[in-house]
């Protein structure tokens, strides 16, 4: 079994789907992200990332949300890897 690895949403490769495992931030950030649909257990897909630490756009459900890079890095995600045949 492959060990789960976590990374910041900002480092998620483009076009990759990932499961949000947690938000490493204060109460305010957690709640604001939650209100936009980004909360633990949710699947996100990275749509775009701007260079030089610009915002990251992810698809959450049917919505697209732009998140500043610093805030995105607080969102820990677990990339979903296509199941390999046994």
């Amino acid at each position, binding site marked *: 079994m492959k060990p789960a690895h976590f990374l910041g949403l900002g480092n998620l490769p483009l076009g990759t789907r990932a499961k949000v495992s947690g938000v490493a931030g204060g109460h305010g950030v957690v709640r604001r992200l939650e*209100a936009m649909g980004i909360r633990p257990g949710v699947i996100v897909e990275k749509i775009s990332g*701007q260079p030089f630490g610009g*915002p990251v*756009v992810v698809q959450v*459900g049917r919505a697209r*949300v*732009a*998140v500043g890079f610093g805030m995105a890095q607080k969102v820990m995600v677990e990339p979903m890897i296509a199941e390999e045949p046994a």
Partner: protein
Amino acid sequence: MRLIMVGHPNVGKSALFNRLTGARVVVSNYPGTTVEFTRGVMRLVGRRVEVLDFPGTYSLDSSCKAEEVVLAGLEEMAPDDVLLNVVDSTNLERNLGLTLQLLSLRRPMLVALNFWDEAQHTGVSIDAPALEQRLGVPCVPVVAVAGLGIRTLVERIRESRPSTYLLNGRCRWEAVGEIVREVQTLRHRHHTWRERLGDASLQPFTGAAIAVVVLGGSMAVVHWVGEGLIEGVCEPLFVRMWTPAVLWLSTHWGNEGWLHDVLIGTLTGGEINYGESFGLLTTGLYVPLAVILPYVFAFYSVLAVLEDSGYLPRLAVLADRLMHTVGLHGMGVIPMLLGMGCNVPGALSCRIMESERERFIASALLAIGVPCMAQTAMIVGLAGRYPLALPIIFGSLVIIWFALGLLMNRFLPGESPEILVDVPPYRRPRVRSLAKKVGMHLTWYLREAVPFVLLGVLLANLLYHLGVIAFAGRLAAPVVGGVLGLPAESVGGLLIGLLRKDLAVGMLAPLDLPFRQTVVACVVLVLYFPCVATLPVLLKELGSRQMLLAAAIMIGTALAAGGILNLALWATVG
């Protein structure tokens, strides 16, 4: 009883409000169009019911000014008030978080499921009766912009009731997940070209290319339409229809007298010079109606398309990194863009910025460095005869805007929050909505701005005749002449600029200034102080202490930038 509309940003509350009340409220496709309460009245079984459209809020935990406005409003609810929760059906899960919070207030409530058509087109189907049963309040599918489902919604207002929904110890999002699993089915479908384009405009390279095309194209269209209307319609109309009437009146009065001076002004060789005669009936009408109105029309038509299509949040994402250098995040482009039409709505829209620091920076940058369309049109008219003047004027403004932003970001205490914004799908702008919006802006301009232009012309005449302008000119000569290199007569323009900046630019026309003075005067007129319409809005939004600071920055910047520009031009072109 009042009907109180609450929902996430950009779910169509204002569109629904317009449908319910017949009012005309600005509707766009980006979060944060409505930053204040809007009040209206609708008829409900013969009764007049007040309808309140609240600014959009993602939750009932306040995290920005707009959300605080909503919370304060909810606390003031009367027992018989009804909550109308507007929900974006294409994003049911996220929206229900707020819905459950509202239900827990135990107020009479109903839910409007907006964008019902779009949800179906994108493969989202919602079992509205099941949702209604789950939540315990009426849930009505609607398409606000098209007016579908409105009648049913209105009929069911009286069925609204406090919900008995209980979380039963589950966390809110668990409960939401459960409801969504039960009432919503998603059908997979392929991406449409509109979605592909929407995502392409978010990528670094394709996005930048699209931004250049969109913004460059917008500027070109505004200029082309504006000039086209001036040369093709407005000017010929004035010359053919209006000139004979004014000349007849002039002859009737024997070409002289104080009434002649005020209404018609000075004729050059028996002819009206609409730019320079400076009478109420000549320059006073020509400037607002034939020079500015075409540009105002062109600008708001283009802006309306940008707003309704959903392009602006994408521009905000692309510009985010750059805007952080001036202490704002990407959404700061919205007050700046709106301010290019008129600084008043621009200053109001600074509320979409979360922190006080950002609101101050945005307001200051807007009031100092962003000329409104009226002023821009006049600058193009005045300075356009020197080929290099326009690039230098607007180039200087861009540099000053950035420099000032960098300084404020460096020296104001605190940090700017990061962008967190919903990027709505591209939507086809509806011609009706566009026409209504442009019509509203034009009415506002004709009703609020034109009287001030006329007042300005009257005041300019009065001050000139009373010798006030000459006196102020002598008084200010050391600064205006010494630092800025402008003639004493230009002080009249600087005085009237406190009232209307477009007119101030117009007052420079009779002075026939050479290249250097034209450039410096135009730049200083943009920078030095907000006009009389913008000042009270800034004062209200910023408070007197911050406004004082902003005013000091403005005057300081105007003198410094004007002085440097004067020296630089003197050194290079002489």
